[in-house]
């Protein structure tokens, strides 16, 4: 391992304003000419590690060597051999593509003949030649990342550090980015790709799997997934509620983890456990247990100690919603224009009571705009959005009393304590006195918030923030829950726990409308609408959409495959 490009030896990084180390005793190497994935949920320490390698931060203790150099001492020399693409778009939005390239070329001292040759090569490589005069801020998410990549490649680096390049990029552009990175690997460049998407881990040669500052796994991703080989199954042909089945199945000791995949339930068994008896768990007469390929995420769950179980303490306390007959949520020709740009373009859908309806699409596709119109936070340019038969924009607070809303990014009061937030939101929804106390205490118990009551939510771990946000959204027992990207960036255990609650409340008759850009998360929904460039390009149950994309060569496509196939079909149609 002596020829490693980067060596990391028991590196620890503690930021002065926090008690917990951001990185805690990380040791690993990054081998030349390969792509190494830095994988983990938000707050795992990925960005910190990348910034240490780039020489932008000094470790509290431990040693890092990049290309034989100390990233802090030999910073000037190191700059020549690394390219760094930060997570937040590191480009000037008010400069054009060409100007951004020129600026970075000036900074890297790429001049004369070499400059024009490099520009031509990079613009061809990124396919941005047509857009050189466009302002960087006006590019799509995918194109921005390609431009960022081009700028990072300007000095012909040996090591390329990419911090979450896949965020905000639609699946098609994401695949293109991966192809481009593969070409760079073939040219002998070493790439570090950080990501919160666990499915991307499987595309890397090596993986550093991190969680809360600790290294969970280091090695080939297949070594990780092989740990759970022959323990992954799908229960198919289920009769009855698959959500209730999942809850039952997770009760049995043999099952380590389970999720819903469309009409099926996916299980991972504990090591050495016997297959569950489908009859005992009441899966229906036709139900069958089919072995499926293990996933990196399942192995991660096991490394973290198994799934959270299938019981939702929240749902147990909820009163069932009854007597609803009409449509819960309805969008008719819903359109929102910002100038010439239609963020939402003649969107139609209906959501029935007691179902989970998902708006699925990449960032910037128009999900949030649509969503905000449904909640009455934005006025449509034309068309109507109705919730329980009422237009939320014109009507009033009684209708909103029946809604719960959880915003995209964590948005509770950071300067209030956890308890004050709970009190505030219950008060706003009209709970008071003994009843308020009772509900707040229930939430504290259900979401295990007792130790944090007097802390500010900003200092909580992401998982607890998420719990608190959900608690604040459901205290008043809403009939309809609006969840905007509820699980973005959280670790898979918290994600499972979150969906367990959602499944539980839906079983009680609550309607849930959710947006997500996690393709696999859409599998939890009863029905989904695929949103792309402001329009719904397909709608149906997850299985229906996957079937549409199924081909003889590729009989069992993932949600992401389905999405790409449907987008391509759409653009072919538009082209012909």
């Amino acid at each position: 391992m002596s020829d490693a490009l980067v060596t990391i030896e028991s590196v620890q990084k503690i930021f002065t304003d926090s008690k917990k180390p951001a990185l805690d005793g990380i040791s690993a190497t990054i081998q030349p000419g390969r792509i190494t994935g830095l994988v983990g949920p938000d707050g795992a320490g990925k960005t910190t590690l990348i910034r240490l390698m780039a020489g932008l931060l000094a470790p509290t203790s431990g040693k890092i060597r990049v290309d034989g150099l100390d990233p802090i001492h030999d910073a000037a020399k190191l700059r020549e051999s690394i390219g760094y693409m930060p997570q937040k778009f590191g480009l000037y939005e008010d400069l054009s593509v060409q100007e951004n390239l020129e600026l970075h070329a000036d900074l890297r001292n790429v001049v004369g003949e070499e400059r024009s040759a490099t520009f031509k090569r990079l613009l061809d490589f990124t396919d941005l030649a047509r857009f050189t005069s466009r302002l960087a801020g006006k590019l799509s998410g995918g194109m921005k990342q390609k431009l960022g990549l081009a700028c990072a490649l300007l000095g012909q680096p040996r090591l390329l550090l990419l911090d979450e390049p896949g965020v905000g990029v639609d699946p098609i552009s994401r695949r293109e980015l991966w192809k481009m990175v593969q070409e760079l690997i073939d040219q002998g460049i070493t790439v570090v790709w950080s990501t919160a998407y666990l499915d991307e881990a499987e595309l890397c040669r090596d993986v550093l799997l991190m969680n809360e500052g600790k290294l969970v796994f280091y090695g080939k991703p297949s070594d990780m997934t092989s740990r759970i080989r022959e323990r992954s199954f799908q229960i198919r042909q289920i009769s009855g509620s698959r959500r209730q089945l999942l809850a039952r199945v997770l009760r049995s000791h043999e099952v380590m983890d389970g999720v819903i995949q469309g009409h099926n339930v996916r299980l991972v068994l504990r090591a050495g456990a016997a297959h569950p008896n489908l009859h005992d768990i009441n899966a229906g007469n036709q139900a069958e247990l089919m072995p499926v390929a293990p996933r990196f995420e399942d192995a991660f769950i096991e490394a973290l100690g198994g799934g959270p179980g299938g019981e939702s303490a929240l749902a147990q306390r909820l009163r069932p919603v009854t007597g609803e007959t009409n449509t819960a949520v309805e969008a008719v020709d819903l359109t929102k224009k910002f100038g010439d740009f239609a963020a939402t373009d003649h969107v139609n859908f209906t959501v029935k009571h007691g179902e989970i309806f998902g708006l699925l699409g990449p960032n910037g596709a128009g999900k949030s705009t649509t969503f905000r119109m449904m909640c009455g936070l934005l006025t449509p340019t034309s068309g109507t959005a109705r919730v329980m038969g009422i237009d939320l924009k014109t009507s009033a607070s009684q209708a909103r009393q029946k809604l719960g809303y959880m915003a995209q990014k964590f948005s509770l009061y950071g300067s209030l304590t956890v308890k004050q937030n709970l009190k505030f939101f219950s008060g706003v929804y009209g709970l008071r006195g003994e009843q308020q106390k009772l509900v707040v205490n229930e939430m504290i118990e259900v979401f295990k918030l007792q130790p944090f009551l007097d802390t500010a939510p900003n200092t909580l771990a992401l998982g607890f923030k998420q719990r608190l946000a959900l608690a604040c959204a459901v205290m008043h027992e809403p009939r309809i829950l609006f969840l905007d990207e509820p699980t973005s960036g959280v670790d898979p255990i918290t994600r499972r726990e979150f969906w367990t609650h959602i499944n539980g409340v839906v079983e009680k008759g609550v309607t849930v409308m959710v947006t997500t850009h996690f393709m696999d998360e859409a599998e939890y929904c009863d029905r989904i609408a695929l949103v792309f460039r402001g329009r719904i390009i397909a709608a149906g149950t997850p299985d229906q959409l996957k079937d549409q994309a199924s081909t003889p060569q590729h009989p069992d496509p993932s949600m992401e495959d389905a999405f790409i196939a449907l987008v391509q079909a759409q653009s072919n149609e538009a082209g012909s």
Partner: protein
Amino acid sequence: MFLRLATLIIKELQTLLQDKQSRVILIMPVVLQLALFPFAATLEVTNNTLAVFNEDSGKEALELVQRFSQAQAFTELIPLYSEAEVRDVLDNQQALIVVRFPADFSRNVAAGRAARIQALLDGRRSNSGQIALGYVQQILQAYIGERLNDKQQVALSNLIIRNQFNPNLDYVRHIVPGLVAIITTISTLIVTALSVAREREQGTFDQLLASPLTPGMVMVGKAIPAMLVAMVQATIILLAGIFIYRIPFAGSFGLLYASMTFYILALAGFGLLISSVCATQQQAFLGVFSFVMPAILLSGFVAPVENMPTWLQYLDWLNPLRHFMIIVKGVFLKDMGLSAILQNLWPLLVIAAGTLGVANWMFRRRLE
């Protein structure tokens, strides 16, 4: 409805008071302005230097020089002995004003002829210079008056000025009531405009709008905490004015606080209006700043409103601080009566109704 509003108000006060930083932001300006303004922002000229070039050695000239040196306005007196020194002392800003007695001064005075005296001022400090010249003239007037008395002669007319409400022309009496108005202005605007912008930035505003609260309730929920905070601050300054600076409070507290309520409402309207067009705290801060600066400058606190061009006076009618400045000074120093207060109060009511109405409309419109 009422309890929900109470929840909002409690939340707002908690956010304002729990955070150390925002507590400092609320308290520091009060303390600083209270400690510094009454001393720094005085319009009196004191502690200045007078230079005297006395070419005369007579008794009369000496008498006047001694009177100058006793004056409070001049703590230092530099004797000069040559023309060149006169120039130097002014060029180097060693003296604000030079008084020069010609060689025949005392002789002329003694003989009852017109005697001349020259005053040279530092033109770079024209305002202070003018005021200092005023003091010099006062001393001269007094001297002339006494000489006439000595000769049993009476001056043809003698103007005696007494200043009502502030007999000693003590500038603290001008500053402190003004501070009451200025501090309430700043804190009301900051609490309303910045807190809405902060909620927008943090995404909690959406959370509020998705709840059963109406935009109107959210506005009231911002205006009332601002009112509470501003009134507490105003009270601190008021008490400090009365007990520390010993300014007699002439009027009625009830009337003052009642008018303050309407004033704060008018301001809250401006604050909410600013916040309704701002997406970030930074924008809101700039908005508050560009409102507060002209509002204070055109309030009559710095320069009389009557000295402004007519069109600006009309425009200034929209400035709530202008009206409240009259009320607060009037009530504090002059025991202004109800009818006089009402004359300045109704514009505040109109402004409050206008700004709050527009702000409410903007809040609904902003949703688009």
